[in-house]
């Protein structure tokens, strides 16, 4: 922590047309070799802050950016023209993009993608390759030389994120801005990316890490700034802020992060509702042949219990959900139900897609109702105001949409809810609200729930029993706390270590 700070901002206010002040009087300092985390709800202004640090907000003619001090590596950038910002980006400050799956051009090779910063600055081709290789090594991409010619389709999600990080590193920028760098990744992959960011910081890079995940903050950041409605409400060393938060917003964020076991004890297991035996579901593989997404899985769900299914993307957990709910038929194996057959309803990851866009909330609920409940009563059960019945899904927030989806499922008076990643698109406080709602409904109505998630902490919070899946098979199952306390399979241990889960 010597010399000038990598970033120094005093009194930054950003106003965007139509939305007013998105950031208000923001002060930030990042020392060399320091990682500052900026946390906050969605809508707090995190992404606008990231864009402003890179001079992108300033590009917008209609945006107003005012600051008393705004220095990148000691250079005053308040009145910097667009041309000069372009020269700055990639060399003095660079961005690690959020979505590894969408930020890479599928037609360009890794070398072209990572080397772009250099190509724009007319670095000669032979020198470019060496520097691209160095950046790929620094980003921890295995077998970097062989990857140069590969395109994003040939790379896994974690590798793509490393390529994006290499793109940010290649220009030698001392200041990196990472906007939710691990949100799109599985927990074990995310853990490795966070280790990498920590190592880059140890090597002297400065990092602004923008995230909504406090677990991420605890792992890599030195200091944290809490953003709420465009203002910094609390800032300080990570241990201090997370350990003894002073501001109410910070406390809410900490309280919302899922941790610990399920609060209510499991009721004694009821009769079996649905039993799946030896399920196999194959899909045609891109290169010919077939891949078994679900490969010999057996599950049974009893009335009144919550079964959590965890696994990484591609482990077959969503396919299993679709088989249980009857959206797909198994290629082998059987799904049998108790008599009379239980009513099964799905809570999808993206509820918006499952609403007819032309319909109002009221019509959506009425159409699904199999009882005497009114739409208003259903909305009340999921904690929504009755006047939402006249709204269309497009005008609702993510949390409201998920609540409407739950209300719609309840409208059928179901015996079993299958929740497929119901909270993974929501931010922490919204997520906490939905999880509490599900747990409460389950206890009140004696529902059986199958809860699918890649997030171990979330699954632990709601499940009585947990099933760990990998490559279409079950690797471990048992009572949730037993699995957490004494995981038997190495993969479960890795998941628990990566996910924090405590």
């Amino acid at each position, binding site marked *: 922590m010597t010399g000038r700070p990598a970033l120094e901002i005093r009194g930054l206010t950003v106003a965007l047309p139509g939305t007013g002040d998105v950031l208000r009087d923001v002060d930030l300092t990042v020392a060399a070799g320091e990682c500052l985390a900026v946390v906050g709800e969605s809508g707090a202004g995190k992404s606008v802050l990231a864009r402003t640090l890179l001079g992108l907000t300033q590009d917008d003619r209609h945006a107003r950016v005012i600051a008393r001090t705004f220095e990148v590596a000691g250079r005053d950038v308040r009145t910097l023209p667009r041309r000069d910002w372009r020269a700055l980006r990639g060399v003095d400050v660079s961005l690690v993009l959020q979505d590894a799956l969408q930020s890479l051009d599928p037609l360009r090779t890794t070398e072209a993608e990572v080397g772009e910063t250099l190509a724009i600055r007319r670095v000669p081709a032979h020198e470019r390759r060496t520097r691209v290789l160095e950046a790929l090594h620094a980003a921890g991409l295995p077998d970097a030389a062989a990857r140069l010619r590969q395109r994003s389709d040939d790379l896994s999600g974690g590798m793509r994120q490393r390529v994006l990080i290499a793109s940010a590193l290649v220009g030698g920028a001392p200041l990196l801005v990472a906007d939710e760098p691990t949100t799109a990744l599985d927990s074990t992959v995310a853990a490795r990316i966070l280790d990498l960011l920590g190592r880059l910081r140890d090597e002297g890079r400065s990092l602004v890490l923008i995230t909504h995940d406090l677990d991420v903050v605890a792992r890599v950041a030195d200091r944290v700034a809490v953003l709420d409605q465009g203002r910094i409400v609390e800032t300080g060393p990570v241990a201090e802020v997370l350990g003894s938060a002073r501001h109410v917003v910070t406390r809410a964020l900490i309280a919302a992060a899922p941790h610990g076991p399920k609060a209510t004890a499991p009721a004694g297991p009821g009769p079996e509702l649905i039993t799946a035996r030896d399920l196999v579901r194959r899909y045609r593989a891109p290169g010919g042949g077939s891949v078994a997404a679900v490969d010999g899985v057996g599950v049974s769900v009893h009335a009144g219990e919550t079964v959590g299914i965890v696994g990484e993307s591609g482990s077959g957990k969503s396919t299993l959900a679709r088989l249980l709910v009857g959206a797909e038929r198994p290629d082998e194996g059987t799904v049998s139900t108790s008599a009379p057959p239980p009513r099964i309803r*799905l809570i*999808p990851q993206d509820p*918006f*897609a*499952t*609403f*007819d*866009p*032309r319909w109002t909330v009221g019509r959506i609920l009425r159409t699904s109702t199999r009882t005497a409940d009114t739409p208003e009563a259903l909305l009340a059960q999921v904690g929504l105001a009755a006047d939402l019945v006249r709204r269309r899904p497009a005008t609702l927030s993510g949390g409201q949409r998920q609540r409407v989806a739950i209300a719609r499922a309840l409208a059928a008076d179901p015996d079993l809810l299958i929740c497929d990643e119901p909270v993974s698109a929501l931010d922490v406080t919204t997520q906490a609200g939905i999880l509490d709602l599900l747990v409460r409904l389950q206890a009140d109505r004696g529902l059986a729930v199958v809860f699918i998630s890649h997030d171990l902490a979330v699954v632990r919070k709601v499940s009585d029993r947990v099933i760990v899946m990998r490559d279409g098979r079950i690797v471990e199952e048992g009572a949730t706390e037993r699995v957490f306390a004494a995981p038997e399979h190495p993969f479960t241990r890795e998941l628990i270590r990566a996910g924090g889960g405590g």
Partner: protein
Amino acid sequence: MSNPVAAPSLRAAFARLRPAGVVALVVVLAILVAAVWPGLIAPGDPLAIAPTDALAPPSLAHLFGTDESGRDIFTRVVHGTAPSVGIGLAATGIGIGAGLVLGFASGLGPKALDAALGRVIEVLFALPTLVMALLLVAVMGPGTGAAVLAIGAATAPGYARILRARVRAVAGSGYVEYARLEGTRRTRVFLRHIAPNTLWPLVGVATLGIGQAIVWVSALSFLGFGTLPPSPEWGAMLNAGRVYISTAWWMTIFPGLAIVVTATALTVLGRTAAGGGRR
């Protein structure tokens, strides 16, 4: 987020209209009046001849001038609205009707049917609309009915293609799957979700199509294959004026303007409606 077609509220639709859309709306309303009650605007007889007034240039007595038999062009243009627009509407109706059958059959039917229809539509698509219409008229012989049928049939593949893609998207959507999972019957799913979500975006496309169809039908009439003179149909009037274009420009200009203004107004309205569907 993949949000297919959100239905705009009426007020939102109106707000989106301005200012070009408002002008277009006024023009379309005026056209409707002229079509339904032409006597209100032009009380004269569109077929009345007055040889002494033949080929008179525009004046206060004859706003748009007269033709070679002394018929008042203004009266004829106004009275020509109903047949011209009616023909356009009928042709579009036929085109969309045939397109609906093809599109739904292709989008919802078995794979083999989809493949077969797809090839047929591609072949029809390869021919320009007017060439295909001329081909059909050549088979059926000239006349208003034949022109309408020909334009309708020639535009059907385009509508079929739009509909098929749309039907596919809606049938594969999350809300259709959810309705099926809830145990909703197929016909119900079709009536409740697939049909409305497919047809709504078609409103804009159809409005665009009417303007286009009027131009095409007029083109057929101009070529002598559609409505025959002396009926006051715009295309036929163009055809009649062709001979006198160097001496009596008003005979072609005014019916031509009527076609352009009508097609433009409908197109502007159609674009606004289609834009609303996209969101």
